[in-house]
């Protein structure tokens, strides 16, 4: 493992008696794109603001490129930041906005102008230099804000929900653009969002946060397929949770609603008689028996939602309901509510939540 570029070590933040971030740890590689994902109020912004220097940690330290920056002022950190509300200076033109950091740093005008033109090209708004912010759409303003943040070549780029004020289409195109600019410039980036699709689609790694802690840090693939905690499993993606009782710990037998499934090698440490939460992603379940799926449960069709190319079916198994998606095929009519049905899955896809 290479030396981390940004290292957040045992950081805690309290506002008066309330602790909003507790023992937060994260190492970010140079050039890596890490997202903070979590519900509202979990402390994402607070951690970001501590990295930016707007809040001082109550404990712990923040190291960038081997240098402890915990007590530095924001204007001494050489960090770029993009805000949710754009925060462009309304009295300055687009070019002056992008050049603000360069001017503050004392860059000669000719060099600054060249850099501004370069930035306008990167964000694909080359003709907009003389406009004022109020003459731009939200998406354009946010791109200018991005250009302004990266113009002074910061060591670190921080983005706090930069897309949440934009409409859905712009959101998708701009997040891809942010990602491609970030890759091209190789700038280490932290991206805060509460939109899981956003985080899954553009991050190298995701830190899922809950209650002021990082619940799990991992690649989108790991987070989605191997959630470490119940919270992560529930927060990221749709999840079907079934309660089960261990009947035979040695051979991995678990009883779910008076039917037995075998979860060999997944029970790590549970004893016979323990109750467990078992979770399955909708895409890991199919209707009916299929070769290669080693487990099955029977129940009754509870709901059928025709969504076009996909049919979402909810199957009642005892007291629990399980959602699954099947592809629509014109040859076979969808199942009817009330029919008996069997669902099958691989026991390997079953997540045991602790």
């Amino acid at each position, binding site marked *: 493992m290479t030396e981390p570029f940004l290292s957040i070590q045992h950081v805690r933040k309290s506002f008066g008696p309330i602790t909003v971030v507790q023992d937060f740890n994260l190492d970010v590689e140079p050039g890596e794109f890490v997202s903070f994902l979590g519900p509202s109020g979990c402390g994402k912004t607070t951690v970001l603001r501590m990295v*930016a*220097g*707007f809040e001082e940690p109550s404990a712990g330290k923040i190291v960038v490129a081997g240098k402890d920056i915990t007590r530095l*002022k*924001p*204007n*001494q*950190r*050489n*960090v*770029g*930041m993009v*805000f949710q*509300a*754009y*925060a*462009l*200076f*309304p*009295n300055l033109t687009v070019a002056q906005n992008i050049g*603000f*950091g360069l001017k*503050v*740093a004392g860059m000669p005008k000719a060099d600054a102008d060249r850099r501004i033109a370069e930035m306008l090209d990167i964000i694909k708004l080359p003709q907009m230099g003389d406009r*004022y*912010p*109020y003459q*731009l*759409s*939200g*998406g354009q*303003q946010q791109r200018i804000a991005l250009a*302004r*943040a990266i113009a*002074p070549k910061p060591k670190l780029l921080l983005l706090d929900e930069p897309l949440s*004020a*934009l*409409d859905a289409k712009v959101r998708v195109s701009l997040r891809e653009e942010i990602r491609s600019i970030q890759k091209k410039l190789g700038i280490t980036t932290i991206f805060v969002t509460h939109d899981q699709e956003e985080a899954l689609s553009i991050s190298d790694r995701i830190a899922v946060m809950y209650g002021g802690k990082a619940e799990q840090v991992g690649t989108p693939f790991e987070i989605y397929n191997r959630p470490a905690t119940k919270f992560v499993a529930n927060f990221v993606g749709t999840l079907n949770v079934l309660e089960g009782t261990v009947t035979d710990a040695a051979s991995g037998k678990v009883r779910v609603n008076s039917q037995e499934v075998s979860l060999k090698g997944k029970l790590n440490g549970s004893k016979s008689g323990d109750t467990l939460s078992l979770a399955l992603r909708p895409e890991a379940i199919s209707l009916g028996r299929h070769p290669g799926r080693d487990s099955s449960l029977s129940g009754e069709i509870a709901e059928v939602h025709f969504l076009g190319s996909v049919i979402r079916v909810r199957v009642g198994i005892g007291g629990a309901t399980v959602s699954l998606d099947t592809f629509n095929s014109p040859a076979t009519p969808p199942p009817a509510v009330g029919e008996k049905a069997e669902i099958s899955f691989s026991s390997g896809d079953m997540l045991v939540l602790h």
Partner: protein
Amino acid sequence: MKSGRFWAWVVFALGAAYFFIPLIATVEFSMRMRRGAYSFDAYKVVFGDPRFQATFGYSVLTAVFTIILGVLIVVPTAYWIRLRMPQLRPVVEFITLLPLVIPAIVIVFGYIRMYGSNSPLPFLGSETGANALLVIGYATLALPYMYRAVDTGLRTIDVRTLTEAAQILGAGWGTIITRVILPNVLIAVLSGAFLTFAIVIGEFTMASLLNRPAFGPYLQNVGANRAYEPAALAIIAFAITWGCMSLIQILSRFAPRSANRPN
């Protein structure tokens, strides 16, 4: 509906008459100095009076200093309160309103007692000191207007986020105030400045009690001793005030537009 509009016009006409008739009468009277014909003689006399020129010049200068002092006090204060101590805003707002409640005469007597020539801070011991004290007193009188104008200006921008955006780009406090905050509240500051100007030009109590050669006492003096000139002076003073108000209106068209319109 129709009759509603009719009555609205009647009320408007009454209001306009209440306002304009005395004004027109004053104008008319001020032009009757020459017997039998309308003329601007009274205005000529006023403008030709060296005391008019001296006192008016003095008051304009005082107004300029008052505005500078007011801006230096109010802009950083209002900014800091919005940024760091929003919970103090009601308190500060109350303090800035005090000059409206406490009569100027009370303030000026306080000054005379506090800063007399044998007090530890003998402002009144010298010309310059007395002038400075007048400026300070005027800044106090103008405080409610100045503070309100600037605070309203600050409300139209996102002070905190703009400050942070500038900070993270490397700016210090000086740069933030001069390049980000002031330009965005400039129109508000100017309207505060013109209100201050209008107040200072006509102020009588403080100038008179501090024995300053200002325009207000001159107005009073002429008013007590002459017939037509006071009318002319009243019209002139009125024109100055109106000029200030129209300037505020014109300037507010140039206010930088807020760009916050998330779609």
